[in-house]
């Protein structure tokens, strides 16, 4: 078994602020993902990484940067937080070529004032 840890659990920011979310996994999975979840809109892929130092853009990458510092960690930066933005950011991981079986963390809930 394994676990995905996301920090922080709650994040409150100001408009225009740069905010960083962190994710750690101990599954020893190659691939990691960042999703944004908005109410009623499902999960939208922001970035994914198939190995250390690899980055691939998803459907929603504009306004975000990501970094895969090592196999077990994947961070996401909101480059300029938008006023009244509220969403949950979910990190996930999977074995290489098993993107159908993703393991998710509990999420970071972002509120921008």
């Amino acid at each position: 078994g394994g676990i995905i840890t996301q920090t922080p659990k709650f994040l409150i920011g100001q408009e225009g602020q740069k905010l960083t979310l962190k994710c750690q996994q101990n599954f020893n999975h190659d691939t990691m993902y960042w999703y944004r979840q908005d109410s009623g809109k499902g999960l939208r892929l922001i970035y994914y990484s198939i190995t250390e130092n690899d980055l691939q853009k998803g459907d929603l990458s504009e306004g975000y940067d990501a970094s895969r510092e090592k196999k077990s960690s994947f961070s996401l930066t909101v480059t300029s937080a938008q006023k009244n933005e509220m969403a949950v950011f979910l990190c996930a991981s999977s074995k290489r070529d098993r993107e159908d079986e993703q393991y998710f963390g509990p999420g970071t809930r972002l509120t921008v004032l």
Partner: protein
Amino acid sequence: QQQVRQSPQSLTVWEGETAILNCSYEDSTFNYFPWYQQFPGEGPALLISISSVSDKKEDGRFTIFFNKREKKLSLHITDSQPGDSATYFCAASTGSFNKLTFGAGTRLAVCP
């Protein structure tokens, strides 16, 4: 453009009834369809999945029915329990390394 559609948006059933959650897709290259279950405050978790070579997949009280010709599938939850109350996401992939495309989800409430 929403490639994976789910209906209804929300569903309420009584304990013991069968809940039916629907999913349809547009891209004919999709060939693998996992369903994820998400409880409030948690991340989604893989519940059951089916590939396009099958028309039915069963796991306990959860069954996926798949109609390739109509590009539709459904998740049936028999003998629904209050603990099944969650949001269910239908997802799709093309099988080779590619991202999952998620539907918007169906929120299921099972009343005791």
